[in-house]
């Protein structure tokens, strides 16, 4: 095996191991404020720990259709979307800051950021 082949194999193993380690070892964020942004602009911030009765809100995005967002105590999801791929709907509820819900066609992002301990903690 040439050196190039070995280098590529090493790089691939490193990428795999690095990503897996990151996913497994990252600390669970404590945030409970859901920030909904549209096209880079924050449109709504909801403190999920204070939601008593579940409710839905509908947001019209620049993609030309709307997303229906269901808000519950401690968690949030996109329950309905006008896009063809429905990836944000399939993702289901999120309750911590590890993975945001992203709807690419409508430029919608729902992320959970720190509350209480200050917003700065989760923006990094």
């Amino acid at each position, binding site marked *: 095996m040439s050196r190039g082949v070995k280098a590529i194999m090493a790089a691939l193993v490193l990428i*795999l191991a690095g990503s897996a380690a990151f996913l497994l070892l990252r600390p669970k964020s404590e945030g409970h404020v859901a920030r909904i942004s549209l096209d880079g602009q924050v449109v709504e911030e909801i403190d999920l720990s204070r939601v008593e009765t579940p409710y839905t809100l509908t947001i019209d995005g620049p993609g030309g259709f709307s997303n229906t967002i269901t808000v519950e105590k401690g968690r949030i999801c996109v329950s309905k979307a006008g896009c063809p791929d429905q990836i944000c709907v*399939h993702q289901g509820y999120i309750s911590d800051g590890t993975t945001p819900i992203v709807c*690419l*066609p409508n430029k919608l*992002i729902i992320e959970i950021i720190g509350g209480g301990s200050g917003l700065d903690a989760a923006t990094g």
Partner: protein
Amino acid sequence: MVQLALLTAIALTIFMAEAQLPPLVPIQGVKLGLANIVTVYAVFVLGPGDALLILCARVFLGAVFSGQMMTLLYSAGGGLLAWAVMAGLSRILTVKQLWLASPLAAVFHNLGQLLVAAGVMKSWAVMAFLPWLLISGVVTGLFTGLCAQFLIARLERISRGKDPGTKED
């Protein structure tokens, strides 16, 4: 020229067929990328220049046929980065080792796509998907790379005049 057109048509067909499949994992951007079998094949057998022509034609026509012009940005961002990586690797690796070039190219494809997404969304929040996309890039890239490798082995046997369907020994 005929060969390029044929390969573009094949890539486009695979691309459109795959677009009809429901997403396997609820993560944006994770898919097999079967059309890249053609790109990998073209880079190593026809050369990077011809592969770029096929890639551009496929990305453009794919966006036109799927009716989503946004696909154009994502495919182009990822595709061009992956092509550049593969063009570089084609100098180091031989045709027999191309299955190794594919996963690295796929990783860069996903990275490029994510950078485009970050630009479109005007937010770095999408980078949370990066580790998922890196892992999926290695796995799917390995798969498409092996497909291309087997394809080339078969085509060589055909061009040597042997029927690929029959066992030889």
